Structures are given as C-alpha cells and as structure tokens.
C-alpha cells in the first residue's frame, strides 16, 4: 500500500480502508445516506464483493457468521435511520458473544444533524451500550484513522462490534488520502499483562487438586488457543466441560471432554460442578445460564479464572487466582509448571452420571421408541453422514439445544450460535456468512419453524449468490422452547406458542432452492443424505414430534446440582 497521498473522496476512502484491512467481502443494504460509498463499491467490485442481504438484520448476522468461521472481522454496511436501527439486534448479539465486527452506517449531512432530518437517527447514541466502540465521522479526513482504529478495536483483545457512522457530506468531500493501520490506542489495553506469580499460584492449585474440573468457553476459540488448551487438558488429565460457545474447541470424542455445562448441559458436569475441589475457568464468563443460582454454585471449590477481560474477573464468581492475559500465551506458559496426572476415579464419577443420562434421556432422544421423529435423531443422522466435520449453525430454541447437545465436532470453529443474546432469526443469515467464511466446509443451519420465519427473506440472498448452505428446519409447529416452559412452569397454558405454518417446501422452491420435507422415520436418513450430498443450497424440513422437551434442565434460579432429567 502506498504512503503517497492521493486526492479522493471520503466514500472512496472507506473502500480503500476496507481493502487495506484485507476485507474482500462485506454484507449490506443501500440507501440514501450511504449511496456515495455504494457508488464506489460499484467501481471496486472486482476487489471487494458486496453481498446484498434482504434485510439489514440479515446482513449483520451474515457478517457475524462470517467472522465466527473465518476468524476475521465481519463487515456490515447500512444506510442511516431504519437501515442503521435494523443492525442493532446483530450488534447487541455480537457484543455479548464477543464477535469482531465493523459496521458502517451512512448518516445525514452534518449540517442537518440534530434537526430530525429525513432518516436521521442517533445511531451512535442507540448503539453505545451494545458496541465495544463507536464513532461518528463528519469530516472526510478523519476516515482513515477512524477506520483503522475501528478494525484494531474490533479484532484486538476481547473482540467486539464497532460502529462507524459517516455523514453524507464527509462521504462526498475530497481530501488527501493515506492509510496507516492502527497499532494501539492510548487508553485501551487490548491484552492485560500476566502476573507470573498468578501462573505459579494456578499451577500449585492444579498440582494439588484431587477433583479438579475445567470449564472452557469461547475464549479458547477467539484466542486461537485450541492446541495450547488441548496440551493443557491432556497433560493435566483434568476432565473438561464446555459452555455453549466453547463447543468444538476440543473434539467431542476426546476422552477428557465431559460435555456441556449449564441449563441444558450434561448431567455429569453440572452435578459435579458442586463436587469438584478446583474449578478452572478458561475464557468463559460465568453467564447465569451456566451457573444457575450463584449462591449455590461451586461453593466448595477453589476457582482459577483465565481471562482476557478484567471486568469479568470476580463479576459473578469470586476466584482464588485470576490469570490475566490471552489464553494462548497463559496456557502455554502454564504447561511446564504443571504435573502430568490422571484422575481415574474422578473421571469415573463423570462416566457414572453419563450412564444415567444416557439411559434416562439420550437413548430415547437419539433412538426414539415412539413413532414421531425426535430432534435428536435428526442430528444423529447428520452426524452419521458428516462424521462431525461440518459447521453447525443454530437458531434459538429447543432445536438449538438439541443440535448442540447431540452434534459431534471434530474441528474448532464448527459451531455458530447466538449464545448470550439468544436471537431468534440468527441462523439463516449467519449460516450464509459461515459458509462464505469457510467455503470448503459443509455448513448446516439447524433452525426452528419459529426463528426461520424471522429472517426467512434471506433465502433470496442464498438464491442470488448461490450460497451452498443446507437449511434444516425442525418443524414442531410450536415456539417449542417457550411451549416447554409453559408446560413445566405455567400449567400447560400454551399462550400464543402454536403456529400454523406455510408450505415451507414451496417457499424454498419459489427461490429455486431444491427442497424436501419428511415426517417418517424410514425417509429420514435418505433425506438427510440427499440434503448433504446435493451441491449448492438445499432446504429440508423435518416434521418432528410437536411436544417433546429438552432435558436435562436446570430450572431458572435453581442450583446446577438440582438439574432435572425429566
């Protein structure tokens, strides 16, 4: 990239900044206040692909999916006013799930700011609580430094979404362009320093523990620390459980992978959270869906917290030792300090609980004795064809929990789900981005009939760009997860959770996407196989049992050890 100054417009500068940051794909939707930038996109279309979503929410979830499978910064663009506000759900989702995004919004001309101009909205004000950083640019010459800062902040440290709002006059104005990537921001420490003593203290606790347990989260994936993490698990011999966003950092079949913690997690790791003598939290933040009632959460255990964000330490769970820093370096530095150990009888306790869960829950879910299809058996059929080598994108609800509980994973970055925000409508657009972020991988979107209809318009995007995602809708004709809570906690009063659904196959076919629907067990395996083997996009609806429940379950506010099997 040349350091020489060139006279260009602010709009062209936006494109040149994106190119300088290595962006070759972005998602968006045009409109008045961002038209100068779109005009430049037209000129640069051989270098930068713009995917026109069918709704700005679709664009931003796609950018999120792209970021999650590629490990790069996702970029979403929209116009001012409604375009910008339509991004907000995705921004909030990315903030709580630490997804690196740069969102670019057009804004009315600076002389109109504050005058309630056409499509003026204070998107900087609106997005402040849900962005890692945001800025409004009113002068073209500020574009390069602010864009550089935006990318730096989005991807460094604990990643997150950043929003850059650019007034239309700043897009039109000409200035002398040069680009310098951002190397640091004075008031922002991306990665906190590691106190060497904390590593020694952590090692001492680990070496002395009798019943230690690891709970890892997405920090391992975001920090690209999968190898260091695995080396730590294997040398320490400690059983390791995952939060929903941590899944796939360690392969499902690993001997020391003891399953998921939290509300619909596995029986063993939830029960034994309240039995272990040492809880080693790695790149996770003790969300309430993980801990249940904090008053009764792991009170008997000492806690070590490996964390990049100082504000997460002692926020929900007090720890004995906090090891600050990126887990990629802290886990590598920890490794020589720990003893090689195994915990046969402790591990056997996990296996004993597994056996109970297997008999009481899993067996029936994966191999139902009833006629109706179960969600679990659909996922089992997917596993049987992919061997676990697929990216599973999920929406929010029962199908999400079933997909995450039963999907097998052999590689990291293989699950994309809306964890912290629980955004219905996430999966279909996120799957488009996930596929474009990992084009060589099979990408399967597992979606409920409810959430599917929240962003179903993105079938148009899939069709136009021929994005090869497999759309698997598990249709129970209910907002199933809410119905489950109504059944369990509201005496079966099914208030507004039953849905009369359209003919989904016809809708997919309307978009020229090959489609099928099955409702019988004997057709399921073939239908799944055909879906996965057909090149390009494919839609499969599986009509499942209407009133199945997801178990195990920790009712809200209950203790992790009060996890229910029925």
């Amino acid at each position, binding site marked *: 990239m040349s350091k020489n100054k060139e006279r260009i417009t602010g709009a062209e500068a936006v494109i040149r900044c994106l190119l300088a940051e290595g962006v070759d794909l972005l998602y968006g939707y045009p409109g008045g206040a961002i038209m100068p930038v779109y005009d430049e996109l037209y000129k640069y279309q051989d270098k930068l692909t713009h995917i026109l979503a069918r709704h700005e929410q679709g664009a931003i979830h796609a950018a999120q999916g792209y970021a999650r499978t590629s490990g790069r910064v996702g970029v979403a663009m929209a116009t001012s006013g409604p375009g910008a506000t339509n991004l907000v759900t995705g921004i909030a989702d990315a903030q709580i799930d630490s997804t690196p995004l740069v969102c670019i919004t057009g804004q009315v001309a600076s002389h109109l700011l504050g005058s309630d101009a056409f499509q003026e909205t204070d998107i900087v*004000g609106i997005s402040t609580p849900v962005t890692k*950083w945001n800025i409004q640019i009113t002068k073209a010459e500020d574009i390069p430094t602010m864009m550089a800062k935006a990318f730096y902040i989005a991807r460094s440290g604990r990643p997150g979404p950043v929003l850059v709002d650019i007034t239309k006059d700043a897009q039109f104005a000409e200035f002398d362009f040069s680009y310098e990537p951002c190397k640091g921001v004075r008031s922002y*420490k991306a990665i906190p320093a590691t106190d060497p003593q904390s590593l020694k203290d952590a090692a001492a606790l680990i070496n002395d523990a009798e019943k230690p347990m690891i709970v890892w989260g997405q920090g391992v994936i975001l920090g690209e620390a999968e190898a260091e993490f695995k080396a730590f698990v294997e040398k320490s011999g400690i059983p390791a459980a995952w939060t929903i966003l941590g899944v796939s950092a360690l392969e499902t079949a690993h001997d020391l992978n003891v399953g998921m913690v939290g509300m619909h997690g596995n029986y063993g790791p939830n029960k034994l959270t309240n039995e272990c003598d040492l809880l080693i939290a790695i790149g996770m933040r003790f969300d309430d869906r993980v801990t249940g009632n904090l008053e009764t959460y792991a009170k008997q255990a000492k806690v070590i917290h490996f964390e990049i*964000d100082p504000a997460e330490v002692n*926020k929900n769970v007090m720890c004995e030792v906090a090891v600050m820093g990126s887990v990629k370096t802290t886990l590598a530095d920890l490794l020589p300090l720990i003893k090689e150990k195994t915990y046969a009888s402790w591990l056997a306790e996990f296996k004993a609980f597994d056996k109970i869960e297997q008999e009481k829950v899993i067996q029936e879910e994966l191999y139902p004795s009833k006629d109706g299809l179960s969600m679990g058996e659909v996922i089992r059929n997917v596993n049987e064809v992919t061997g676990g080598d697929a990216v599973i994108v999920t929406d929010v609800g029962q199908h999400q929990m079933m997909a995450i509980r039963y999907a097998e994973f052999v590689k990291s970055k293989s699950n994309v789900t809306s964890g912290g925000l629980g955004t219905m409508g996430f999966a279909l657009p996120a799957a488009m981005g996930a596929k474009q972020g990992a084009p060589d991988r099979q990408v399967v979107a597992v979606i409920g009939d409810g959430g599917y209809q929240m962003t179903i318009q993105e079938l148009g995007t899939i069709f136009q760009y021929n994005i090869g995602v497999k759309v698997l809708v598990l249709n129970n004709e209910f907002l199933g997860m809410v119905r489950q809570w109504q059944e369990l906690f509201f005496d079966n009063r099914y208030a507004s959770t039953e849905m009369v659904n359209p003919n989904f196959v016809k809708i997919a076919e309307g978009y020229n996407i090959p489609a099928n629907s099955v409702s019988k067990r004997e057709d399921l395996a073939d239908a799944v196989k055909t879906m996965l083997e057909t090149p390009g996009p494919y839609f499969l609806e599986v009509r499942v049992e209407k009133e199945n429940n997801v178990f195990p379950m920790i009712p809200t506010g209950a203790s992790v050890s009060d996890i229910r099997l029925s």
Partner: protein
Amino acid sequence: MEEKKYYTISVYTENNVGLVNRISTIFLKRHVNLLSMTASESEIEDVYRFTILVKMTEEKVKKIVGQIEKQIEVIKAYYHTDEETISQETALYKVKSELLFDEPQIQNIIKKSGASIVTVNKKFFVISKTGRRIETEALHSALKPFGLLQFTRSGRIAVTKEAMMISDVLKDFDEE
C-alpha cells in the same frame, strides 16, 4: 448485605463526545442513581476527568468501575470513600432582600457559615457556600425557615489524598 456508602468515582478519559453517554449507561443498566457527575479538564493536558458521586456497596462500585474502565476511551477509573478524598460542592441560595433587614439573624447565619454574598439588589440577594455536603446542607436548613426563593447545588468535585499516577498509566500505554 454489605453496607451502602458514598463513593467518589474518578474517571480519566480521552476527550470524546460520546463518553458521557457510554459511562452513564453503565449506571443506568444497574439502576444506580448518579448523585452527581461533573466533567472538567484534569492535571494532564488533553485528559479529561469525570467525578461521579454514588451511594452503593463496595462490591457493586468495584464492578461498575471495572466496566467503566473497560470502555476504550477511558484511561483509568478509581473509586474512593469520603475519608480518602477532599471534596467540595458549591450551593447557591436566593433569598428576598427585605429579609436581610427584617431578620437580623440571617446576617449572623451567613457570617457563621462562612458563606459569601454574591450579589444584592432591591428584590433579592444570593448567597454562595462552598464546602462539604454537610456544610451546604446545614446552611440550607438554617435558611429554609425564612423562605428560599431558589436553591441549587453543584456536583461534587474531589481530589484524593493518595496520588493518582495517571501519568504512569499513560506512559505504560505509550510504551506498548
């Protein structure tokens, strides 16, 4: 339950228009009332300082300060108890002028409180008192029986007894 106390939160920031909003939403989310918030320059060029007064438990203030400090343009945030700070607030009291002549005690009250008279005209006079909260409050209760036309008090400003070391923090950032 831990006891609620007054805490003075000092936030050193880069000058940035959006920061007031960013900082106040952190309080808003936890339903915390800001008793006062003042912004000014600080001892360092181009570094701004917010002084925020809250009443809450130490556990909560610690978490809030952590979340403030995490904001990109915040250089450093601290919290201190009343004992650890020297703080001042200024109050203005507007009173009817005739009282100054009809009620001789008023002159005494003003003198004893160490307040000063900012302005006097035919209709009213204005008293100003700078001091700790109890002092401005004492003057308020002393004047109230005579009738206050207007009363207002500024936010708290405070310096800490201990050094703040912001320059060191900035040096740290610069070295990386």
